[in-house]
């Protein structure tokens, strides 16, 4: 879900990384690590920035940065995407490698998972090949303790030759030591002697063919070529011509790593491949290898095998498992939550419980907030009368802007304040990857990516965040499918609309106690329909404009973790909820103004809004809506939250929102304007399936770098919605059900 200022709109649009040192003494620290090792928690604890953390791999899809002061110095911490390796097999790995390699950080912290150290060492060893200013942070020590896994940190530090700090970032344990280590390493207070390791003899021979010549060539380039500022900086700090790194680059060149060449060209400003001599040496090295029976795939196998075996060896010497079956509890939970019989029902059940709690719990605070805010309105009006403000200004501010705001706040705030913490709870627990695991076969059938389920979960919070989240999918085709269909998951802006309509039209038909259950079921049906549409449209896209077979992927099911309840609540309320609300208010205020003007400026006998509605009416009627409703959807392009407020405002002859103290009054208002249950159904369908909001469209444009795909992402849900509404309305009308 990931709903923070990082991912809700403001943050998602700023993804390019520029690191500005405020003072030349500032130190830039890269924060790397495998996905899901608590990297974001370390980041948050150090910087106090609320970057969202969740228990599933691939949270950090873009580089986030924050800073902290330790002793006399300012440290700029850059959170780079979590990766298993730096072999640049995916965009994230490329970003991570490029930053460690060319971003020239003063030090790199690698956060590792104490419960799964061996696997994490893989990345540590690969990073040691690129940089020597490395600090290994062994995180999640409490989890390890619980699982009776002991890690000899001192021995680990001896073996790796770099500082190793044990932490438990969730309880801030060890963070001071971590900051000390970073301080010492960046002020050259401690002598580090990073471990150097050799590959097998054949690979070492091959490296020797290229390495000395690469040094010569780079030195020459440095001397003779006009370099850009950044690369001069890199050269002058001996970042490039560093023996260990040259060795690594040589091996990459033999391996034929095109992404590294591209990155060097981008960051250093020259193309190594233009150097004919170098090409000859590389060719010689490759010929040497193939003469000895090592082809391209085998070279990669051997490189990786060396590192994996070394990690295995180090892990064997430093990690002791006092309980071999340390994961048995997780396996037991998995065997229920992903079982053939219970897996999917439990998933739907959990979602249902969340909705039920949200709907039931939101009623009371909604009423209280509405009463309170409408009470303030009287004072506002009194104030304007006292200040002798012209009547129309007063109307515009109070009836136009203020009432729209009150509606948005009282309707949106309570469900969000309940829904977010509950959803975050599941996320912290580690349940979301299990959702992806359960649903994968459906995605496979639709020729889509299994991780699309995770991007859909993010969409529940905010579709723009979901679209940025699609970066976790590396196949471009499947990523586009996930982007185009993300809007079929209703975001927090659309939930209140759905909940309000369900409460008014469907829950009203049953006696008191059953109301909330009926509402929950209705909402579940809408969400499931959205998911089904996602599969259907993904499938159609895979067979038409985005033809292709499902690509391969691996999905990690991380260990379950105890959610941090206190943190969830604080973060959900102060970070997510208030932020999202702030954004909604920022959009709703000017929208309220425009709508008030449209509803109050008359041309002939009708207002501007009426004219538009009359124009849209014939078409809207076919889709089971009416002109005002369609107009409301169009006007809420900036933010989906304001659909209902606009509909209400349009229906009022006076052109401003009524004081709708109870939903009953709202129901009467809607019924008096010809709403039937069919209208309600069609509004819900269209709310579920229509164009993405402005922020989302903007994000799609940014993420796809293509106007074409943005337009397609706009049209596909819209056309789907119109078609479905049309079919529904026609069938119901033909059968004479309304």
């Amino acid at each position: 879900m990931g709903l923070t200022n990082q991912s809700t709109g403001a943050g998602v649009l700023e993804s390019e990384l520029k690191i500005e040192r405020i003072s030349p003494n500032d130190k830039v620290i890269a924060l790397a690590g495998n996905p899901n090792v608590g990297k974001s928690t370390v980041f948050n604890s150090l910087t106090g920035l609320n970057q969202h953390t969740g228990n599933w791999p691939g949270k950090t899809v873009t580089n986030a940065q924050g800073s902290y002061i330790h002793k006399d110095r300012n440290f700029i911490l850059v959170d780079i995407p979590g990766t298993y390796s730096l072999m640049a097999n995916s965009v994230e790995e490329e970003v991570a490698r490029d930053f460690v390699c060319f971003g020239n950080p003063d030090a790199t912290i690698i956060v590792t998972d104490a419960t799964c150290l061996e696997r994490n060492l893989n990345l540590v060893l690969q990073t040691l090949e690129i940089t020597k200013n490395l600090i290994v942070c062994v995180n999640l020590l409490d989890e390890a303790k619980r699982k009776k896994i002991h890690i000899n940190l001192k021995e680990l530090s001896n073996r790796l030759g770099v500082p190793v700090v044990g932490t438990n970032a969730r309880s801030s344990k060890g963070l001071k030591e971590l900051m000390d280590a970073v301080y010492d390493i960046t002020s050259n207070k401690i002598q580090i002697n990073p471990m150097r390791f050799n590959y097998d003899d054949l690979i070492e021979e091959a490296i020797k063919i290229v390495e000395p010549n690469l040094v010569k060539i780079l030195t020459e380039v440095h001397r003779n070529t006009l370099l850009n500022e950044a690369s001069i900086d890199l050269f002058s700090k001996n970042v490039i011509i560093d023996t260990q790194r040259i060795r690594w680059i040589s091996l990459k060149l033999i391996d034929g790593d095109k992404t590294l060449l591209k990155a060097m060209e981008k960051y250093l400003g020259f193309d190594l491949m233009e150097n004919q001599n170098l090409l000859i040496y590389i060719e010689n090295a490759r010929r040497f290898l193939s003469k000895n029976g090592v082809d391209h795939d085998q070279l990669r196998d051997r490189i990786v095998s060396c590192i994996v075996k070394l990690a295995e060896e180090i892990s064997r010497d430093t990690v002791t498992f006092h309980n071999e079956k340390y994961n048995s509890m997780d396996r037991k939970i998995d065997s229920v939550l992903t079982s053939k019989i219970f897996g999917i029902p439990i998933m739907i059940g959990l979602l249902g419980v969340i909705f039920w709690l949200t709907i039931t719990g939101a009623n009371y605070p909604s009423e209280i907030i509405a009463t309170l805010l409408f009470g303030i309105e009287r004072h506002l009006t009194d104030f304007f009368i006292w200040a002798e403000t012209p009547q129309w200004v007063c109307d515009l501010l109070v009836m136009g802007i203020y009432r729209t705001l009150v509606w948005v706040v009282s309707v949106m705030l309570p469900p969000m304040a309940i829904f977010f913490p509950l959803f975050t709870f599941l996320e912290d627990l580690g349940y979301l990857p299990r959702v992806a695991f359960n649903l994968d076969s459906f995605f496979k059938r639709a020729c889509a990516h299994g991780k699309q389920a995770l991007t859909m979960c993010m969409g529940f919070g905010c579709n723009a965040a979901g679209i940025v989240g699609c970066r976790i999918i590396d196949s471009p085709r499947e990523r586009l499918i996930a982007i185009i269909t993300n809007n079929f998951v209703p975001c927090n802006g659309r939930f209140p609309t759905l909940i309000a309509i369900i409460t008014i039209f469907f829950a009203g038909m049953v006696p008191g106690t059953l109301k909330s259950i009926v509402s929950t079921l209705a909402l579940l049906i809408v969400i499931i329909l959205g998911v089904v549409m996602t599969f259907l449209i993904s499938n159609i896209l895979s067979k038409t404009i985005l033809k292709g077979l499902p690509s391969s992927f691996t999905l990690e099911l991380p260990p379950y973790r105890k959610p941090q309840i206190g943190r969830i609540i604080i973060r959900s309320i102060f970070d997510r909820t208030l932020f999202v609300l702030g954004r909604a208010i920022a959009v709703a205020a000017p929208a309220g103004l425009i709508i008030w003007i449209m509803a109050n400026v008359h041309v002939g006998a009708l207002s501007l809004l009426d004219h538009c509605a009359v124009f849209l009416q014939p078409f809207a009627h076919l889709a089971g809506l009416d002109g005002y409703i369609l107009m409301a959807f169009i006007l809420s392009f900036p933010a989906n939250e304001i659909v209902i407020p606009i509909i209400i405002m349009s229906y009022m002859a006076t052109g401003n929102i009524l004081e709708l103290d109870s939903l009953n009054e709202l129901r009467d208002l809607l019924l008096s304007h010809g709403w039937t249950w069919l209208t309600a159904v069609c509004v819900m369908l269209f709310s579920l399936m229509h164009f993405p909001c402005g922020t989302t469209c903007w994000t799609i444009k940014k993420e796809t770098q293509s106007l074409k795909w943005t337009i397609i992402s706009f049209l596909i849900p819209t056309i789907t919605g119109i078609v479905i509404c049309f079919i529904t309305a026609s069938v119901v009308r033909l059968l004479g059900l309304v």
Partner: protein
Amino acid sequence: MEIIIPLNNLPLGKKAKVCELKSSGIMRRRMLDLGLILDTEVEALQKSPSGDPTAYNIRGAVIALRSEEAGNILVRAN
């Protein structure tokens, strides 16, 4: 007796050792990144509700693989 089978045919709860990766290119690299090199022990843990993908214990991490991917990994089982 040892038999060589594709990983997707490994019964749940059973362990086996990797003896060959049939995939190439990016998929092969991804498998290697997981630490699936020669002789790595893999245990089949759990199938998803529809029977595919399957979760495996690979070097202490639980990784779900679709049958297509697992089918490209040959393992030696008892």
